[in-house]
């Protein structure tokens, strides 16, 4: 955690973008430049700034955005729910569908169904996120395609409008993750299915459903949970970054994107800190889930 903040601080803040000139009026004097730099805190020593950053993170007093003067905490509070609402369906569907397909392919491994699913997942893996987003937009949101959904925006005031705005981003997210998820889950499941204790089950007449849903699934929960837990921080921030900047959705990704392109350091600092925290939390929850799922960890 300290490392995360340190490295990102070093790169992003100390060597990071300089907002001075964007905050200056026209024809500024040297004195005004100094004033702005001072106001932004650029003129303080590295360690002091880093210390301040840590203090801000710990006290959750994240300051105000350099761009629009809004409190960063308020920005986060406003945008995080949007991002969650945006990526959650895709994330859940992508993982569930991947899990289901992976299980299916693993059970029928070597058969045509497996080959079909795996080929499809290779195809899925080979399409760039960007291409998917643009392609889906053309297909679904424009007169060149079906023109069913909005090109951009996020004016959600009920389930109907939520579906209206969330469908295309969700599809994009599902499409881009499904290939990878299916593959991963298939590999995990296939390995699990080949384990000796599944053979034992078969030798004792357990039905495929019992084998798969009781034993294979429970045994593979550890890698599955790990993957899911650790992808959360990234889906929320990295995944939403592209989606939101492309679909103009006011979530944390767009805010981050704008912060990157305008050099809004307080926001960048907060986002990095936030993912660091998310990561650590994911780590902790993960460990907790492990011990719930795997008795070898709970009762060594």
């Amino acid at each position, binding site marked *: 955690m300290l490392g995360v903040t340190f490295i990102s601080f070093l790169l992003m803040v100390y060597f990071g973008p300089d907002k001075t000139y964007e905050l200056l009026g026209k024809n500024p004097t040297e004195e005004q430049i100094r004033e702005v730099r001072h106001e932004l805190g650029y003129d303080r020593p590295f360690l002091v700034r880093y210390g301040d950053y840590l203090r801000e993170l710990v006290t959750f007093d994240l300051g105000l955005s350099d761009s629009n003067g809004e409190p960063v905490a308020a920005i986060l509070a406003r945008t995080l729910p949007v991002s969650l609402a945006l990526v959650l369906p895709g994330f859940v569907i992508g993982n569930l569908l991947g899990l289901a397909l992976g299980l299916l392919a693993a059970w029928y491994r070597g058969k045509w169904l497996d080959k079909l699913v795996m080929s499809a997942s290779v195809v899925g893996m080979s399409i760039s996120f960007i291409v998917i987003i643009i392609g889906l937009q053309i297909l679904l949101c424009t007169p060149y395609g079906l023109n069913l959904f909005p090109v951009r925006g996020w004016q959600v005031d009920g389930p109907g409008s939520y579906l209206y705005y969330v469908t295309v981003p969700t599809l994009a997210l599902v499409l881009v993750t499904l290939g990878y998820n299916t593959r991963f889950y298939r590999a995990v499941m296939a390995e699990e299915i080949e384990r000796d204790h599944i053979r*034992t089950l078969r*030798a004792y*007449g357990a039905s495929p459903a019992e084998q798969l849903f009781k034993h294979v699934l429970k045994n593979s929960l550890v890698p599955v949970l790990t993957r899911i837990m650790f992808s959360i921080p990234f889906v929320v921030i990295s995944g939403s970054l592209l989606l939101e900047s492309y679909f103009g959705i006011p979530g944390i990704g767009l805010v981050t994107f704008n912060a990157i392109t305008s050099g809004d350091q307080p926001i960048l600092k907060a986002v990095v800190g936030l993912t660091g925290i998310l990561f650590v939390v994911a780590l902790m929850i993960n460990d907790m889930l492990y011990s719930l799922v795997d*008795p*070898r960890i709970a*009762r060594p």
Partner: protein
Amino acid sequence: MTVPALRVSGLSVWIGSGADSIQVVDGVSFDIDPGEATGLVGESGCGKTMTAMAILGLLPSTGVRVSCDHIEINGRDVSRLNTAQRRKVLGRDIAMIFQQPATALDPVFTMGQQISAVYRRHADGNQRRAHEAMLASLESVGFERPEEIAQAYPHELSGGMRQLSMIAMAMVCKPAVIIADEPTTALDSSTRALILHQLQQLQALHGTAMLFISHDLGVVRQSCRNVMVMYCGRLIEKTDCQNLFSHARHPYSAGLLSCIPQLGATRPGRISSIPGQVPALADLPSGCHFAARCNRSEPRCSESTPVLDAQDKKGVACFRPL
């Protein structure tokens, strides 16, 4: 004449498909009577485990081909059953004990859960009765505190205890036949003795027929009355243990016996070994597979195949037996 508990006839297994397929089990036939323990002995790769897996129908459906005349359990042919029907047989009428109890048990369920699941699947869905049956079974294999074992996860038990639990699992439905595949190979000599002892007692108690697979003639001698010797996918000799040790008839059996180091007060002389190597399964010589290594072979040994009488308890597949 009693109906044999397990009757296998004409069992063959091929790995691979088409012209490249390799025959790993070649026309294996035998009977095991109720209460009888029969050892299946052979070196690694000779097809012992394949035979067991084929009997249970556990071989994968792709890449492996199985054919047999029939496999009867208590006179009922199970080889033609569909998957669902076969599931009912597995664990209830015929159960298997595996070589590696550490991996053969599901690490995330307690022993109790795993054993009672078998009971509930086959005998009685009632949770309480299954629990009782499970405890009884654990007790019957010699655990003094079965509740403790029932609540333990496999990793919390020692290797011997896991194998005993596995035996308890096999016995919980009191099947007619048990197939034990190298059940003691990974264990200490003391644990091995204990497990063989328990296995024998249980078998005697319930009148269970047992197919005991091992590469160790000593172990087979300790736990079985009859023995079958396998070489390159074929049964080459069937006899009772006493007889084999005192008077092995197939040259391979004899060679195998002579390889076993002997204990004794005086240091034994040179051990003898069988010359040559086991041929690769992909590249078996015609006729008797052992002919090339046999010091008694004659031309007809590599031309035609000596056969073993299918369902007899004793016999030898050799033109010039000892």
